[in-house]
Every structure is written in C-alpha cells, then in structure tokens.
C-alpha cells in the first residue's frame, strides 16, 4: 500500500501542482494554527483564574459570627454571636468523616519589637490544621504543632514581610520577639501564594493567645475544609447542614440571615470552574468549526482537482488502474497534504506560544501553553480530517467512467 511507487506518484502530482497544494495546505495549517492558539489562550485564562483562587484551599469554608436580626427563643434581635472552643468541638464531633481539617481563628493586633525595630501587625491564634486550610508555605523553621497547643507555648510563625521589616539581616528563627511587651520565640517563617498582605500576619497557638488575652475560650472565626471528594452539590449541602446545626446550638432563628456568615469556596470556585470549562468547550467548538471550514476547503479543492484530472484518471483506468488504485492515489495525496501542513501549522503555533508564554503573566491570563494531549488530539483530528476531505472526491474519482473521460474533446 505504501510502496515507493505510490509515493513517487503522489510527489509527482504534488510537485506538478504547486499552487493548489499550497492553497490546500495553507487552509489546513491556518486552521490548526488558530486551533492551537485558541486552546493555548483558554489554558492561559484558566491558569489566570485558578491562580487568583489559589490563596486558600478550594474546599474550604470560613464561618464568621455576626449579630442576630430576628428575635428568637426569648432573645431580642441584635444579639452579638460569639463562638468559643466548645462550638468548634461541637462541629468537629457532629461532622466527623465529612471534615478534613478544622481550625479556630482568634486574632489580635499587636505591636512587635525586635531590637530597635518596631511595627504593628496582626497575630492569629490557630491550630496546626490552619496551615493546610490557608495553604501557608513554611519557608524556614516549622509551623505550630500539637505540642505547642497542649503546653500553650509562646511561639510564633511570622510572615516574610515581618521578617524583612523587623529582623533585617538577622535570621529570625530562634530569636525572641516582643509582642505587646510579652516575649515569644520565633519558630518559623512563612510565605503565602495569595498576597503580600497575608505575609504581614503571624501565627501562634490559639490556646496561648486565649490564655494571654483575658483567659477566654472565645474564638473569632472557624475555618474548615471538607472531604475533597465532595462535588459541588454535596459541598453546598454540607455547609447548609453546619449552618442548621450551629443555629440550633446558638439559639438563632433558622431564617436569620445576619447571625452567621458562611464563606464557601465551593460556590466561588464552582463559578470559576464552570466558567473555564465553558470556555474550553466553546474554544474546542470554535476550533472544530474552523477545522470543518478547512476540511470543506480541502474537499472543495480536491473536487476541483478531480474534475481537472478526470481525463488522467480515465486514462489510468483504461490502462488497468483498479478503483482502489485511484482512491489510494487521491486519498493519500489529501492525507499527506493535510498531515504535513497541519504539522507545520502546529509547530508554528507552538513556537508562537512558547515565545509568548513566559512573557505573559497577567492576573487574568498567565502562562498559556499546550499540552501533549492537545497536540496528539490535533494530529489525529488532522489525519481524520484529511481522510474525510479526500474520501468523497476519491470515491468520485474512482467512479469516473473511462469512456466519459476519454471522449475526444
């Protein structure tokens, strides 16, 4: 089937018809070029969006207390809701198996001193789970651990910005830092993908902060992540369940919208995911349409070529060419042209993407790229397109009647 003779026939035909080969090839190369660029652009947009939401774990829920807006259970409206350690334990126990990580947040503003340097920062009392929920990256030293919590140790993990501002050239890890006149030991430095403001925080065991500031059991916020296997509906359902349980526990009207605030990332992230998925679907759709236009173009040119070559095909048939020989000739020519020119278009598009990708890193558009799956898919689509585009003209060519073709004109 792929004998040297057949190829030399094809090359002959291509060589002696340079313009039409170029026109056919160009339409395919252009289609693939646009398709790859389109997919790369969508990839870039996806990267951009995902990056924006990378700050916290994507399966996290943050719960903030507010004030009641409705009288309920003997209480008047306007009561301030306050969480404490027991509320956290309640959620922990009620939703075992659904929860992945859970942490309290208890925040204070502190004046920090190290040597001659001083600054005002916020300190958060948390437990070790917080690191995962907030996606905190420990650059040096360690994060808060269970031992720190148990023994209410005065240790802090400080943000990179604080380390730069207060410690200058000194390595902060192991140093003592004065916070509101109390001395803490720095055990680690962290950075955060989300933003620089995050790095102006410091973390300390929640038990330590509660003991030092009024010996309370109060907490300001509860942050948790749920089972990552949950789909969108399950995630929303889960946060609704917590809300119902907490409202019952804290004696809040189930209809009260102001007493508790739930910030469920699933909702926001799902919007973005939907958006990017939609974008991919649309881009693939448009790409397909462009390819179809290309295929129709090739088909068109091939039909024209067949018309032009009717006589030649008739001669070949009179000399003993079987219908399959003719189909092979036309089909392989179209597959060859589509594959080669598609490859050129693809390489060209990839070169453009590779050139642009490192330069572009905007919030909404970052590092556009094409993966191997895309490339392989595109190649397969191409060859199939070539076969499809060549098929009808090839069958038409095979059915050319020699007498019609040979009629003296």
């Amino acid at each position: 089937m792929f004998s040297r003779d057949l190829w030399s026939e094809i090359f002959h035909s291509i060589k002696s018809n340079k313009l039409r080969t170029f026109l056919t090839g160009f339409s395919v190369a252009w289609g693939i070029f646009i398709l790859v660029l389109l997919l790369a652009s969508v990839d870039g947009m996806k990267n951009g969006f995902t990056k924006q939401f990378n700050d916290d774990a994507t399966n996290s829920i943050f719960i903030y207390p507010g004030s009641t807006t409705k009288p309920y259970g003997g209480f008047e409206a306007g009561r301030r809701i306050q969480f404490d350690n027991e509320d956290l334990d309640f959620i922990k126990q009620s939703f075992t198996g659904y929860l992945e990580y859970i942490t309290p947040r208890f925040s204070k503003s502190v004046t920090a001193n190290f040597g001659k340097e001083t600054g005002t920062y916020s300190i958060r009392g948390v437990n070790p789970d917080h690191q995962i929920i907030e996606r905190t990256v420990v650059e040096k030293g360690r994060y808060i651990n269970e031992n720190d919590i148990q023994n209410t140790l005065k240790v802090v993990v400080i943000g990179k910005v604080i380390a730069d501002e207060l410690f200058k050239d000194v390595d902060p890890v192991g140093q003592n830092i004065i916070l509101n006149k109390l001395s803490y030991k720095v055990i680690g430095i962290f950075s955060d993908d989300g933003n620089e403001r995050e790095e102006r925080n410091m973390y300390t065991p929640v038990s330590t902060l509660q003991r030092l500031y009024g010996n309370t059991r109060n907490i300001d916020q509860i942050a948790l992540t749920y089972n990552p296997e949950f789909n969108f509906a399950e995630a929303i359902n889960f946060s609704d369940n917590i809300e119902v349980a907490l409202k019952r526990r804290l004696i809040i009207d189930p209809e009260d919208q102001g007493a508790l605030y739930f910030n469920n990332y699933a909702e926001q992230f799902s919007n973005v995911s939907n958006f990017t998925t939609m974008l991919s679907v649309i881009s693939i759709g448009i790409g397909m349409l462009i390819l179809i236009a290309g295929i129709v173009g090739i088909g068109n040119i091939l039909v024209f070529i067949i018309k032009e070559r009717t006589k030649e095909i008739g001669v070949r048939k009179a000399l003993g060419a079987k219908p399959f020989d003719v189909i092979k000739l036309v089909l392989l020519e179209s597959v060859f042209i589509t594959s080669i020119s598609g490859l050129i278009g693809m390489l060209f598009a990839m070169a453009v993407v590779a050139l642009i990708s490192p330069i572009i890193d905007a919030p909404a558009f970052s590092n556009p790229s094409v993966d191997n799956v895309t490339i392989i898919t595109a190649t397969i689509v191409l060859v199939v397109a070539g076969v499809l585009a060549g098929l009808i003209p090839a069958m038409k060519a095979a059915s050319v009647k020699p007498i019609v073709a040979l009629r003296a004109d």
Partner: protein
Amino acid sequence: MIEIKDLHKSYHMGSNSLHVLKGINFSVKEGELVAIMGSSGSGKSTLLNILGMLDNLDEGEYLLDGVTIKNLNETKAANYRNKFLGFIFQSFNLINYKSAWENVALPLYYQGVNRKLRKERAIKHLESVGLGPWVDHLPSELSGGQKQRVAIARALAAEPKVMLADEPTGALDSKTSHEVMDLIQKINDEGKTILVVTHEDDIAHMCKRIVHLKDGVIVEDKVVDQVRVTPYVQ
C-alpha cells in the same frame, strides 16, 4: 481471438432510449488488422468501448481469447483491460506531467512490475517506435506524431493480446498519419491483433479487412488488399 454474437446495446437518457447496436455478429482471428468504418452515429465507437471493456453490453456474447466478458465488476474489468488490451486514442491521452517513458511504463505500474524493470521495458518499447532519444521528454515537448507513437509504445508495453485504436490518425496531418499507420502495420506484421476505428477510407485500406457499420448493424465485412505505407515514410 475476438468472438461477438448478437450484440445489443442501448443508451437511456431520461425517458428516451437510443438503440445503438442492433445485433452485431463478428469475429477476429489472431494476427488480423481490422478497420471498423462508419459515419458518426453508426455505433463504431460504442462497439470499440464494449470491445475495450470500457462499457458493458446489454445483450449477446463477447469472448476475448476464450474468456467470456460480461457483467464484470470494475476491479476485474481493470485487470482484464490491463492484461488483454492496449489502447490508442485519437487525442493521445498522455499524462502531461509524466515523461515519455513514465507514460509508457504506466500499464506496467498497474501490473505491479518494479520500477527498474518498468523503465527498462518502457525504453525498449520507445526505441522500437523510434523515440529512443525522447525517453525523458514531457508530452508537451513532443510533436503530435511523436505523442501518438508514445501512446502506441504505451499500448504495447503491457504485451496485450489485442490493440484497440480509436481514430489513431484523427488528430494528425496526412504525413504523420502515414507514419503512424506504418508503425501499426509493422506491429501487425509481428503478429499482433489490431482493431482500428476510422472514418477515413485511405486509412481503412491500409488494414487487411474492413468492417462497415451503419445504424448499428454490420452492412459489409470484406477482406482487402493491404496498401503498404512504406513509400510515404521519410
């Protein structure tokens, strides 16, 4: 070599039906050189198309070298054409982007002969028609007579049993016509069976037998004294 009995052929165009061949009985023995004559519309081209397996017959029998030719599928017809028949056309029908030898080698390509052998044999046949120096030329670089000689070499290439020539001199002036007929006579001298469709009397008389067709039937079938064209050449 060729045996035809009660051959009928009609063409249908919409509701109209045109009865072209109305019962042809006709046979050709090996080594004959037969001219098929007739005015246009007499059915001579249709007869040639059926003989050449380019068209199917409606009724009757056609035996070629003892093989019944009827209702062949395209692939089989292509095989028989390639094995049994060599065609010479009025308008040469050379493939214009192939050189002389490549045109001649085309039937061999469809026989699956390898390239080296193809070239060898094509050149041999081109030399036998006096085109030795022209093997690498494109048809556009050849004169009409040379083109027809390339076509004859191509028809010879597959070593066919029968050669069918459809108005082989129709597009040539009388001098080159005679050259081509001289070549056809020489090939016949070597024993090849040849059928020539023509409407020119002098061309017909260069054959050994003349079959006259009129309105789809044979009206005359006679053996003639062959006029040799040798004196006209060069």
